[in-house]
């Protein structure tokens, strides 16, 4: 891609990416926020494309579309006022957060601009897909495998944390004597002395599947 084309894609994309990114946190609707994030990161994929990283750009677009759809689902499921109808504020400590963020931006931006970055200043090139393939299947094989492990255990962990009810969907046999010592003991350990609190698994709320539209 030529410099001009790059510029033509990059500038507006970058602007949109940043604006949508910022508006993720300025909207009072969680669904909107999710969509904005999707947009922002999707646009980032476009930028990747413009910066000659076609493989990564495409990958980013695909990932984001998948991921963001899931995220929107979540928002609808769990958030108070997912549609932002109530206009409620989801922020705290905004001024100081903004100041800190501005400071971070200033510091990083200043260093980024001021630094005489090393390396060849080239145009129009980036590692091509073959190089990436060699990298993945060669030097970074171990890391790649490890990334796979990470995904596996993120899934396992996610299920562990999120799935409700008996093990792997098999309901506990009725009448089986439950070892209350196990869960109870840990529970009390965490409760830090509040004996009697039995936050056993059975104590979970039954159907937390949607948010309450409390006034």
């Amino acid at each position, binding site marked *: 891609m030529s410099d001009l084309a790059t510029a033509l894609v990059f500038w507006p994309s970058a602007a949109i990416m940043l604006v949508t990114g910022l508006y993720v946190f300025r909207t009072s609707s969680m669904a909107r926020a999710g969509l904005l994030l999707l947009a922002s990161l999707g646009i980032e994929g476009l930028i990747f494309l413009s910066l000659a990283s076609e493989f990564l750009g495409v990958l980013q677009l695909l990932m984001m579309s998948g991921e963001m759809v*899931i995220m929107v689902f979540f928002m609808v499921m769990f958030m108070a006022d997912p549609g932002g109808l109530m206009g409620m504020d989801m922020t705290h400590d905004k001024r100081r957060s903004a100041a800190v963020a501005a400071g971070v931006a200033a510091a990083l931006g200043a260093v980024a601009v001021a630094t005489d970055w090393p*390396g060849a200043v080239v145009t129009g090139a980036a590692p091509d897909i073959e190089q990436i393939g060699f990298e993945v299947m060669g030097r970074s094989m171990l890391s790649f495998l490890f990334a796979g492990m990470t995904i596996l255990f993120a899934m396992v962990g996610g299920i562990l944390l999120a799935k409700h009810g008996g093990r792997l969907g098999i309901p506990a046999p009725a009448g089986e004597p439950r070892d209350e010592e196990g869960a109870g003991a840990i529970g009390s350990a965490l409760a830090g002395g509040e004996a009697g609190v039995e936050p056993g698994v059975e104590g*979970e709320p039954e159907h937390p599947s949607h948010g309450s539209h409390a006034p």
Partner: protein
Amino acid sequence: MISLPVVLTAAALLFAIGVYGALSQTNAIMVIMGIELMLGAAMLNAVGFMRYAWPDAASGAFFVLVVMTLMAVEATVGFALVIAAFRNRRTAELDDLTELKG
């Protein structure tokens, strides 16, 4: 035209937006979004560097892949946690999580 500092500055701004989100949002999901943006900024850096400084550095591309993986897996676990939290408290507001302190 475009040059490396421009890309890096854009990434820095994106990162700062992510930081702002992580700091200012009361809702866990929103905070996760901020984190996604921060990771996105890191990817943008790497891509920028590959384009303008190290065209042959495939390890950078792999690094971006890794970051994408991280985005995905962290989101997965994050959502799972939010579900669990919601089951317990019917809320994912971080401001409510103040039982542990001191």
